[in-house]
């Protein structure tokens, strides 16, 4: 697939948040991603779909350098956030992860209070000077994650005492408390019931107004419901990326067609 070089005009216009070019990832000798070039557009939800082991999670983890934590992992190619290489010398991965937040498959709140879970990021990044400011960030983050009304009277209760769906929204509140520009979600609803799933999906639609969202999902219906762009990965390669509507009604690549119609798993 031909993707043009990153246009500075596009970056400046804010149209492209992340531009990945020829990204290859190796776990020791094993190659997991093959020359993936993909633009993540601003204020849009991009869904990554594909069978298990196709490299979609590996790709999403490249975007905030989560793969740095795996010793045998090697990433090649360039990934630019707002036109700046995220592997550049001056880039601090911790700062990068504040700009590019992440929500995981299973809700993983810290064994702390609801309040402290959300306040953790702003505290270590020094985003609040006063207690009032921190309170404001915690409230706003919980409101944006559609959890405030349910927990405002028990902010100091342990986060682990919430239901699965609430815990996941708490993790979203934690991820957005550092005011990221991009939110990565790795199968955020796979451990949730349909009601909690609908709440998270509704939330993704709202978050999109403030951030770009990249979501990895195994549910094609979910990709169809929440995203504007969909990228299909297969065997470590990006096969096709297009408007979500086009992918689900008229995909251009036979492999995409076979996957979404349930002919290959």
């Amino acid at each position: 697939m031909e993707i043009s070089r990153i246009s500075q005009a596009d970056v400046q216009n804010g149209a492209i948040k992340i531009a990945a070019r020829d990204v290859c990832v190796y776990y020791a000798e094993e190659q997991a991603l093959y020359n993936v070039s993909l633009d993540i557009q601003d204020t849009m939800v991009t869904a990554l779909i594909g069978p298990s082991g196709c490299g979609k999670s590996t790709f999403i983890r490249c975007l905030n350098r989560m793969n740095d934590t795996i010793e045998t992992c090697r990433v090649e190619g360039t990934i630019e956030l707002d036109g700046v290489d995220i592997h550049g010398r001056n880039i601090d991965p911790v700062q990068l992860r504040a700009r590019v937040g992440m929500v995981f498959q299973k809700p993983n709140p810290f064994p702390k209070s609801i309040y402290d879970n959300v306040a953790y990021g702003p505290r270590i990044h020094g985003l609040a000077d006063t207690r009032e400011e921190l309170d404001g960030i915690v409230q706003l983050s919980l409101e944006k994650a559609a959890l405030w009304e349910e927990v405002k009277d028990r902010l100091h209760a342990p986060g682990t005492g919430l239901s699965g769906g609430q815990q996941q929204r708490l993790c979203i509140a934690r991820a957005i408390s550092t005011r990221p520009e991009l939110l990565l979600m790795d199968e955020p609803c796979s451990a949730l019931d349909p009601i909690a799933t609908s709440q998270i999906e509704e939330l993704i639609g709202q978050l999109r107004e403030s951030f770009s969202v990249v979501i990895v999902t195994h549910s094609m219906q979910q990709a169809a419901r929440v995203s504007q762009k969909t990228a299909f990965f297969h065997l470590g390669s990006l096969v096709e990326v297009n408007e979500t509507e086009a992918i689900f009604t008229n995909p251009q690549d036979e492999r995409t067609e076979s996957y979404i119609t349930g002919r290959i798993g």
Partner: protein
Amino acid sequence: MILDSKHINSAFDEDLDRLLTQLMTMGGLVENAIRESSRALINLDTELAESVIKDDHRIDLIQEDIDMAAVNCIALRQPQARDLRMIIAVMRISNALERCADHAKNTAKRTSAIVEAPPLTETIASLGRFSKLVQALIKDSLDCFIQADESKARDVIARDHEIDQIHSGLFREYLTYMLEKPSIITSTMHLMFIAKNIERISDHATAIAEQAVYMMTGHLPEDERPKNDDAAYVASADQD
């Protein structure tokens, strides 16, 4: 063929198979209705015409079944891409076929009236030839869908042009006969309406072929067909 490879979930394949079988059964019944309505007219056979009218109900019931099966398939299987387009196409095609059957029924109803005061033999004969062409068109339109044959579908679409021309020609022919022999005006007017019914069936064949193209490519073909049916304007043109 239309179902080229199997789904991991085999029950989905069975659903699609069943849906296509229903559509083909309906197609067969509709082809039969068109053929028999034409035969009843040529032979002035009221009994055959009556059976065409009676059998139309069965076609309506199959169409309802197809609609229900397609809705169930969408709800339970969440089809995507080509599967989804196929199901949508089946629904539209069954709708077009049901309309074709209505036109055949209408022809049969008029046949009973024509028997009371038969028109000239040659006027009926030309209508029989016209009907044969359209019957072939309906058959080809269903074949191109089930065989997923795009070039055949485009051929069906192109042939509608010829049908429109013949329809215009028939209109002129009937006008001439009526001017020559006013006593056959009533029966020939019925023939004119029957000709219109047959011409409408050809339009539905075009619509079916268009759905076949949509199913295969994801796009409806662009409407490039020249409009050749000027039957509606003939009278005013002749007055000049």
